């Protein structure tokens, strides 16, 4: 795999041959990557690809089995607590203290980073504004919606003004509106120069938030680049989705479609045609006497990249 161009500044995170094994099972298999300051970096892949294991090693809560990992220039094996003091962590599963109020959750968390109570309270009030939760400060955590809990977790992760914010599947399980609100908050952080490292199995999330990403599959990195670069390298400008009537879809011969577009992928429920001019595909198909029920032209996405790289869709 081609190395990415060397970042102008020394990387905040550098991994070489990073490996995590649980007994005989290899969760992360000798991966290399760098994250530059201010960058928004993503790990994209299906469940079980090794994203969370990688994040836990970066978070200095899971020992590295083999290979080298440097975070802020330091070794997590010997400097774990010190590095963790400069990280903000948004775990996949909520770890908010449901026996405490929204405000208490932030203030006590600040205490873990050695903040005075007064300073922790000051930052907590600011962060609740940022997370649009100021009016819920005195409430318990339990009645909050999923989206609110996620925003509170992000606010909590920012209490130490971290150099790197780690987000593991930040919007999994949220409804579309809550996701967009969360993306907006993360985008603001990115604008402020916070380095974001996130995992996702959503292509649209990766496209929205990541400057650069690696695609993981079966414990390895299979591609690396910006969302645009990956689409250019592994897909085409446009994709035309053809849906044929039930019965036709199954019996359609490859030869009937050959030569249309640059490349064709057949999924169980539809046919994807990759080309630079998606609008031209419909007439070309009709000219061969095929009658798809629907023809949808859309921009190519990371979903297409993943399909190309692994032969599988991302949907579980």
């Amino acid at each position, binding site marked *: 795999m081609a190395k990415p161009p060397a970042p102008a500044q020394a990387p905040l995170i550098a991994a070489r041959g990073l490996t995590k094994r649980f007994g005989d099972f290899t969760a992360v298999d000798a991966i290399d990557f760098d994250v530059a300051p201010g960058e928004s970096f993503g790990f994209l892949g299906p469940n079980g690809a090794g994203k969370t294991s990688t994040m836990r090693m970066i978070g200095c809560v899971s020992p590295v089995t083999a290979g080298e990992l440097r975070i802020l220039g330091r070794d997590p094996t010997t400097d774990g607590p010190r590095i963790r003091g400069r990280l903000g962590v948004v775990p996949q599963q909520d*770890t908010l203290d449901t*026996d405490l109020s929204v405000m208490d959750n932030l203030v006590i968390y600040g205490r873990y980073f050695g903040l005075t109570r007064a300073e922790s309270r000051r930052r907590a009030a600011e962060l609740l504004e940022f997370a649009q939760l100021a009016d819920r400060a005195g409430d318990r955590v339990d009645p909050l919606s999923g989206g609110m809990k996620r925003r509170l977790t992000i606010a909590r992760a920012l209490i130490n003004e971290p150099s790197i914010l780690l987000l593991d599947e930040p919007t999994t399980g949220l409804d579309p509106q809550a996701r967009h609100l969360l993306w907006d908050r993360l985008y603001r952080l990115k604008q402020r120069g916070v380095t974001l490292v996130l995992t996702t199995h959503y292509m649209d999330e990766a496209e929205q938030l990541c400057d650069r990403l690696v695609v993981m599959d079966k414990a390895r990195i299979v591609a690396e680049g910006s969302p645009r670069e990956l689409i250019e390298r592994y897909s085409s400008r446009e994709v035309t989705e053809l849906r044929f009537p039930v019965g036709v879809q199954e019996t359609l011969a490859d030869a009937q479609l050959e030569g249309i577009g640059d490349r064709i992928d057949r999924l169980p429920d539809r046919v994807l045609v990759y080309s630079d001019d998606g609008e031209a595909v419909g007439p070309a198909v009709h000219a061969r006497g095929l009658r798809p029920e629907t023809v949808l032209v859309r921009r190519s996405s990371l979903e297409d990249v993943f399909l190309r790289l692994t032969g599988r869709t991302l949907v579980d």
Partner: protein
Amino acid sequence: MTAPAIPEPRPSAGYLAAYEHQILLYLRNWRGSLFSNFAQPALFLLAMGVGLGSYVDKGGANATGGVSYLQFLAPALLVSSVMQGASSEGTFPVLAGFHWVRRYYAMYATPLTPRAIAFGQLAWNATHALMVGAIFCVIIGLFGAAATPGIVWSVPIGVLTGIAFSAPIAAFMSTQRDTNAWNNIWRFGITPLFLFSGTFFPIDRLPELIRPIAWLLPLWHGVDLARSAALGTVGDQPLLAAAHLAILLAMAVGGTWAMFAMFRRQLEK
């Protein structure tokens, strides 16, 4: 490259912050538990000490070494109650920390070490044991159930006994996902201990054959030590008292070590 300047966190700050979290949890949720902290000792002293005691005392005070049954019972009941409370504190908060609320994982994402997280829990359990013991001691005073001022020794002895139970139980519970195993420990461990560790009657009333078992029952060491301190009889068998203390200390230290090791293993998974 030169590493960016990162301030070295003071390890002691982490230990204190983890303890502070537990205190905060109590301050926000104390209402339910405080009433029972007062009511339980009063009920036990009334029923067992005053009620049952009036029967026992009719048989003469020989069986209880010359003091009333209430005075005989009070220090032992204090230690037993503290032990039970501390055992619970080693159970449910640990399950909550790892599984129900997952607050230990939140703590571990910060400069806190597994040891600081375990310390915070255990230090709180000891603090709670101290509160329960102190309240119990006040109630004993109100009942006129103290044979000598030595009753106050029951409080620190209770706390030590509490740690001796709470720490190894917490170490074990860190490996559990639910209370199934725990229910059996309570049913076949804690409850028999409560009944047969000399709390309600001296262990020399047990059949000769099973009497040595008392030595293996950790609660007996706390109960017997607290009783001899309260009745002013430590001087009669100083070696026995020293042995009690040594065994309780060994359990507390060993249990704490195990708890630290198990918390680390669990969090680093």
